[in-house]
């Protein structure tokens, strides 16, 4: 009698658990399908496409080519150049964002008043669309004679410069623009983790006779390390796949001076209409991004 009762109770429990699982699956399904349709499927389609010759300008040559696109890619000087541009762009923007963001956060932490206002102003560039930021910089800031930057350069006696026409200046410009827009993000994250550091250990360090610099080197920096590494990881991934701001400011030019890998893939696919080769470039970017992220995550775990 009791035996039977417990058995049914257990069965009942199992049925209930099963029903609950089915219900959960039903709830998840739409989101899961949408995710598959918008990320996983395009990804596989991209890889599939990269195995074809698909040239809209010369459709008669189209067909399956296997790894041919990749062997072409490895011998393509413009690919290697764009990869270098990507790395220079990524490293310099990320380093600048972390250094400036940290400096600002340290400054603002010491501000007695006006912190709220500063944060509000600081967040503005982040909420703008990168395309809009690109337009603002191209027209208001960098336009010869009329742009604010050029105006300042003229007044400083440097003379009018062709900010976006000179290869080096164009590269510097797109780096500055990206840094300008995204430093506030690093600033906000680092400020938040600075604010969470206990105050008493700084007092202890003062009594232990550490100078301000020693307190920064020995206490602040190690304690901020997780936040800094996180910012580096997040910003690196974004910088590697940056697009809109460069596209609107220089379009990758002059020539290929600011053509990061992402932009090269775009130009190949949609300007030169070589969709198969463009896909191979995009896959190469994906691999580079994954490799770098893996290295960064490994560094994060180390120690």
């Amino acid at each position, binding site marked *: 009698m009791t035996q039977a009762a417990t058995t049914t109770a257990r069965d009942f429990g199992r049925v209930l658990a099963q029903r609950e699982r089915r219900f959960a699956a039903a709830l998840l399904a739409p989101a899961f399908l949408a995710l598959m349709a918008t990320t996983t499927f395009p990804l596989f389609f991209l890889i599939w496409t990269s195995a074809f010759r698909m040239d809209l300008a010369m459709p008669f040559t189209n067909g399956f080519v296997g790894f041919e696109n990749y062997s072409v890619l490895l011998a393509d000087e413009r690919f290697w150049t764009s990869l270098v541009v990507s790395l220079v762009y990524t490293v310099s923007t990320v380093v600048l964002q972390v250094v400036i963001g940290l400096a600002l956060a340290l400054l603002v932490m010491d501000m007695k008043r006006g912190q709220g206002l500063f944060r509000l102003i600081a967040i503005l560039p982040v909420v703008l669309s990168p395309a809009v930021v690109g337009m603002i910089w191209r027209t208001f800031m960098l336009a010869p004679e009329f742009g604010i930057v050029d105006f300042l350069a003229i007044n400083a006696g440097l003379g009018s410069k062709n900010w976006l026409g000179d290869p080096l200046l164009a590269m510097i410009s797109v780096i500055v623009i990206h840094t300008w827009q995204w430093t506030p993000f690093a600033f906000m994250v680092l400020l938040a983790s600075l604010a969470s550091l206990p105050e008493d250990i700084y*007092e202890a360090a003062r*009594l232990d006779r*550490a100078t301000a610099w020693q307190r920064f080197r020995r206490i602040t920096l190690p304690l901020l390390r997780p936040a800094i590494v996180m910012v580096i990881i997040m910003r690196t991934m974004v910088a590697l796949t940056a697009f809109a701001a460069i596209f609107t400011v220089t379009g990758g030019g002059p020539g290929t001076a600011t053509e990061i890998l992402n932009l090269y893939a775009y130009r190949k696919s949609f300007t030169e209409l070589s969709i198969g080769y463009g896909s191979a470039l995009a896959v190469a970017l994906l691999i580079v991004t994954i490799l770098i992220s893996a290295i960064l995550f490994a560094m994060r775990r180390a120690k």
Partner: protein
Amino acid sequence: MSGRGQVQFRDIVKMHGDFAALKDVSFEIKPGEFFALLGPSGSGKSTTLRILAGLDAPTSGRVFIDGKDVTSTDARDRDIAMVFQSYALYPHMTVAENISFPLEMANMPKAEISAAVKDAARKVRIDHLLDRKPGQLSGGQQQRCALARAIVRKARLFLLDEPLSNLDAKLRLETRAELKKLQRSLDVTAVYVTHDQEEAMTLADRMAVFMAGEIQQVGTPAEVFARPNSIEIAGFIGNPPMNLVPARYSNGDVIIAGHRFKTIMQASGERDVVAGIRPGALRVAPSGLSARVELVEDLGDTAVLDLDCAGTLIRVRVSDENVPREGDTISITARAQDIHLFDPTTGKRL
């Protein structure tokens, strides 16, 4: 090392907006002394310690260490070590790194540092934990680590802000005894903040009793216990606290709940007073103030009785032998020198 670590506070005031955390505090600490700052929570003890350490600046007044005015000297340059109530260990460093930090900042050679760290760790018995991070230590071990970090550098002043308050009762008693031995062996001036009168009584050579931002009495624990300056101190020091009952003084006697007690006061005349008698100073006797036993708290070796003396509550500590039972009527007496008289309006001792 004597002659080092003399402290003088002169007319120190600390304001937080309109609120006076310290109102005109002056005191002096002699070299080599174990000095306690005792007082209830919020009475300004930590504020005093932080001003002494140089972590906060006083609103007015001057601080002298070894005869030198250090009021505007930065904490870094005062040569003071401190154990924080929160311990304030560096969370990313191991115990060894925590302890060696003050030595590294003083540019001590590496070889000497590791010897000094081991020595300090051994003194507080954490030499087996040197490789752990503070997060992997128990509260008592963290406290010892903070202690080791403070003693490793031979600072001229050693400050402790309620170092035992986060420990459990048993550990607190053990550590208390060790602290005293440590201070003796180091021969260093120590300033010890506590709200626990028992800690101050057992540890301190002298103590300052704080009440609401003011020092009400400075003296040895025995002095303060024997002659509390005010009703507040009388009620704060001693466990259970002193009985404080409204009474009438009349020509050398004091009348409590209708019974006349002899006092050591000689003054003639009559006036209202507050009479204070320690629970341990009252005796059960054949004749005296008669009282009904309301409650018996048996503490093992002694018992505390709550007595109802014609409506006034009086507590008595009696030793084991013949403890009355609840409901009994007994009578109690006290010696003249054990009766303290206070002014009911000013609260000061008469």
